[in-house]
């Protein structure tokens, strides 16, 4: 206070110690937020460009994720078909049946075990050959085998896991004939792995491209305002004081951009993809695509915020150190 008073010449009206913005509620954080919002208002064009870039970039990533997640769901449904069947040439007594069922269930990776009697087997056989009754003439239940149908948990549907499971299964006394469609399982898993690798590669390139485009856009918008950084520095602003409003601005741009991308994605989904069952069927229940799960939506919002913040931080580092 004394310092302030001492500096006052006689010709200037004396000012008492000023209230500092950090004195009140919210302090500097409130000031930085105010500054960031004012900057957005005063630099509408560059902010629209940045937010638009983030929106479009994240919309592309979101669309990719939407397709990828639905493909994963479809693969999940298809993998339900990975089933191991144990055949018996006689009808098992209820006691033997329950002992075997217990032993099979005790193996790791089993999700469901069901016993198919000869009558059930005949019923299925008939339903498959419906309309070709002549083929069924003379076929009686006694000639068909009984079986246990075993479904595996998702984590045990890989080729190697299924093979290990079958080996363990054959160790159970009384089990001799086991079938699980080796070739189909192998091909299906190869296809899944290929699809995931392709997805990871495409997704990776897409994310790198998005980071590159967004960070360069932010860099250009900050470059266009380098005078502001210079003036702030000239009047004695610390590095943090200069950066804070820009970082908040980047955060706001990121959140607004990612929110807009989610809104646009939802619009596209509702307009075109929601009931696209006519030409694309990934999910047998809904026929069409499902929207992104909530955790993915949250992830995209977070990624947008992070993109805006980190993009601003790295750009500022370059200009302020220069």
């Amino acid at each position, binding site marked *: 206070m004394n310092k302030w008073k001492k500096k006052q010449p006689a010709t200037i009206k004396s000012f008492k110690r000023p209230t500092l913005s950090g004195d009140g509620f919210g302090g500097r954080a409130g000031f930085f937020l105010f500054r960031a919002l004012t900057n957005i208002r005063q630099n509408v064009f560059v902010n629209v460009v940045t937010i638009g870039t983030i929106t479009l970039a994240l919309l592309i990533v979101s669309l990719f994720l939407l397709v990828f997640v639905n493909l994963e769901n479809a693969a999940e449904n298809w993998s339900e078909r990975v089933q191991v069947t144990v055949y018996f040439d006689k009808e098992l007594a209820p006691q033997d049946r329950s002992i075997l069922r217990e032993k099979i269930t005790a193996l790791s990776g089993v999700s469901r075990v069901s016993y198919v009697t000869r009558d059930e087997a005949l019923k299925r056989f008939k339903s498959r050959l419906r309309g070709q009754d002549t083929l069924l003439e003379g076929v009686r239940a006694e000639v068909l085998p009984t079986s246990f149908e075993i479904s595996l948990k998702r984590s045990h549907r890989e080729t190697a896991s299924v093979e290990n499971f079958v080996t363990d299964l054959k160790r159970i006394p009384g089990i001799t004939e086991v079938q699980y469609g080796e070739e189909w399982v192998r091909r299906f898993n190869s296809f899944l792995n290929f699809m995931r690798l392709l997805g990871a590669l495409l997704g990776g390139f897409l994310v790198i491209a998005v980071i590159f485009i967004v960070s360069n856009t932010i860099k250009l918008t900050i470059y266009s305002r380098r*005078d502001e950084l210079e003036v702030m520095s000239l009047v004695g602003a610390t590095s943090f004081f200069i950066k804070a409003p820009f970082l908040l601005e980047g955060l706001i741009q990121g959140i607004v951009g990612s929110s807009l991308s989610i809104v646009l994605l939802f619009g596209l989904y509702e307009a075109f993809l929601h009931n696209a069952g006519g030409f694309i069927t990934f999910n047998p229940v809904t026929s069409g695509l499902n929207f992104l799960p909530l955790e993915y939506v949250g992830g995209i919002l977070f990624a947008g915020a992070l993109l805006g913040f980190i993009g601003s931080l790295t750009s500022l580092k370059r200009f302020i150190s220069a």
Partner: protein
Amino acid sequence: MIQLHNVTLAYQQDASALNNINLKIGKGEFVFLTGPSGAGKTSLLRLLYGALTPNRGQVLIDGQNITRMAPSQISLLRRSIGVVFQDFKLLQNRTVFENVAITLEVLGWGRADIGKKTMHILKQMGIESKYNLVTQRLSGGEQQRVALARALVNDPKILLADEPTGNLDDANKNQILTIFKEANIRGTTVVVATHDRRLIEQSHKRLVTLIKGEVVEQVEKETAGDDKIL
């Protein structure tokens, strides 16, 4: 107040912008730095507000060697130094008020005090009626007065000006010179780099001449016709 001891500055290994400069400027002094283009005037001013660091020598402001200061200390130092330029360096998309208030915002003043103090300095500069205009709508003279208001609003100990009248007509030059003199009367040390001979001659202030990065002449001018070569 300001002391330079054996200061040498080179932008590249073989070309020195300033060569073994020794200079003392006392508290409350008014000094003109002059010399042809490329003589080192701007470089010398940039050394004084910590925008450049010399390759050799010491720059003391108020007894503190600023060549050894951390960036955060340089920021604090700049709060007591006002700087104005030939091209004004105003934020074109902001109003006159906002351009001046930025200095006080950096100091952490509250909004009410910023409002009072900013309007006060704008009144002193004679541009209070334009407080709500964006600076790109002002004339050159008005823009320079906004830049001066921004530099003087926190009553700095030192005011540095780099060709402040370079873009102005005679009437505006006189107004700007008057503002410098008034700031000096209030106790601010003023250093003006210029090659405007008319401005120097009508001011009767100390003159330091630089040529090719060296101080070649220092003239103390208290009153007209009373020159004293140092």
